[in-house]
């Protein structure tokens, strides 16, 4: 009797354990995904919601849209171009036997990721203020340049600000990812390379980078997701109202259309397109890494 009670408890238990996940996936992921798809074919007005076919998709491709898509693309590209190679090099530098010193540097570089975007934005606003006396402009003026209006001065300045704030906040995090990847590389490989008299650069390209590839793929993938989902870094500088939309991103556009203009249907259609874009870009990136090839 007792035995069978245990067995039935054991058979049922796994399902009880995963039940909260199933419920929350249904409520907070599956329903919203389906609702977004449905809403993208609707004109959503409180009280009377009606299907309007693909009208949202047809009127979506406005000037705002191309600006937002362009900005999100550029932001993602720039952040990946900087936030993969630089942290890889720094992680290699910090992956030596001087543990204490290296841990201290790692902690310092990690620190910016702890402060919120709002705080980071406040600091950057003040450092990149228009006044020629503000630190960044002061350096530029001292070097013979002219004081720049970083926040309102134009598209290039705006992109620079957004990328810089990302670099400041995420370098340390990516270093941690790469360090954990480096630590899984067996030290025998380096010892063997030393015996063969391999130079540091050769070791980097023949051992470190190939074996770090899984981590590089992982960080690239999350950078693509994060880059296209970027909203906050832009919002804190312009509160959704940047001149000529220099700071408008895809999620910013969804927020603007959905909450500020009240066109939920249109915003949903943009959300669907964004999901497709993220999917395509990550598949292309993963393919270029040879991720889908079977290991020989």
């Amino acid at each position, binding site marked *: 009797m007792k035995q069978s009670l245990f067995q039935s408890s054991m058979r049922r238990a796994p399902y009880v*354990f995963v039940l909260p996940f199933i419920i929350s996936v249904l409520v907070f992921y599956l329903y919203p995904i389906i609702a977004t798809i449905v809403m993208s074919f609707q004109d959503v007005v409180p009280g009377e919601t009606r299907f309007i076919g693909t009208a949202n998709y047809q009127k979506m491709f406005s000037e705002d849209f191309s600006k937002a898509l362009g900005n999100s693309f550029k932001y993602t590209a720039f952040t990946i171009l900087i936030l993969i190679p630089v942290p890889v090099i720094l992680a290699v530098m910090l992956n030596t036997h001087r543990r204490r010193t290296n841990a201290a540097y790692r902690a310092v570089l990690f620190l910016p990721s702890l402060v919120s975007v709002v705080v980071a934005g406040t600091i950057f606003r003040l*450092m990149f203020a228009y006044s020629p006396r503000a630190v960044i402009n002061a350096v530029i003026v001292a070097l013979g340049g002219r004081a720049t209006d970083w926040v309102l001065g134009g598209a290039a300045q705006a992109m620079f600000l957004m990328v810089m704030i990302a670099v400041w906040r995420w*370098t340390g995090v990516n270093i*941690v*990812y790469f360090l954990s990847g480096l630590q899984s590389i067996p030290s025998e490989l380096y010892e063997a390379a030393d015996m063969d008299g391999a130079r540091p650069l050769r070791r980097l390209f023949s051992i470190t980078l190939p074996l770090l590839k899984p*981590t590089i793929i992982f960080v690239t993938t999350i950078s693509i997701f994060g880059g296209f989902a970027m909203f906050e870094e832009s919002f804190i500088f312009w509160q959704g109202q940047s001149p000529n939309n220099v700071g408008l991103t895809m999620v910013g556009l969804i927020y603007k259309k959905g909450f500020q203009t009240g066109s939920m249907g249109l915003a949903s259609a943009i959300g669907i397109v964004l999901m497709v874009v993220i999917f395509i870009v990550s598949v292309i990136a993963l393919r270029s890494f040879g991720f889908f090839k079977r290991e020989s």
Partner: protein
Amino acid sequence: MALLTKRLRAPEAAKYVLLAMLAILFLFPIYSLILASFRPGRDLMRYGITFASLAPDFFSGNNYAALLTGHSGAYPVWYRNSLLLAFFQTVFTLGFSSFVGYGLGVYQFRARNALTLLVLFIMIVPLQILILPLYKLMTTLHTMNTFPGILLPFIVSPFAIFFFRQYAVGIPKDFLDAGRIDGLNEYAIFLRISAPLMTPAFGAMAILVAQQSWNNFLWPLIVVRTGNMFTLTIGLNSLLTPYGNNYDMLIAGSCVASVPIIIVFFFFQKYFISGLSAGGIKG
């Protein structure tokens, strides 16, 4: 041999000079924020952070006093809200995610692999895209402008589930069988035997979840409607007006808002790192 070590020293020194410069560059914004918090807000508004303002020669506690009294005592309310939210978010997210992750890690059952794949799939769906239907859902549930409205979508975290799953896989089966022989049911085994064994995982995820909750911005921006429900990020953002008349509170408020998380980091660095590294390893 001696010659060899000498030759290695020069690049080694160059490396640490470079790292030191980088460290200074990365600390500079935080250092300048702290110093700026002791200066009058109107100077900051006019000139931003200047090299002159970086000399540690001017200290006034006025901005910090303004935090307690400014905007009829709004800042302490934001702070309390953020603390409460971080606390409840951590408790609920850890409770549910460890429960689910443990179930996926320890038991062999039919839906196991499919559900694990689903966890990974959910991890890649950015919540930012789902804000519209989630907003409608919160309106339907009448949870707009409430704590549950801010907490609910994050209660089951796919990342935390995956982390606990990976941890639970490593729990020796003998421990669980010993519990069964002692007459414990599966849930008592989870609570009394397995959960204590997963303490490091709880530590890592507690810090990650608390930090995310503390810095959460986009979702509270949508859910929160009235000043008494503002979190720190939303409140500070509301001070970022183009007129800059709130810089006294903004700068000091930013400093005080960052203090808890930085203190926690220095005490529990190990957990921060292991919480993150879990993501990197699986590739």
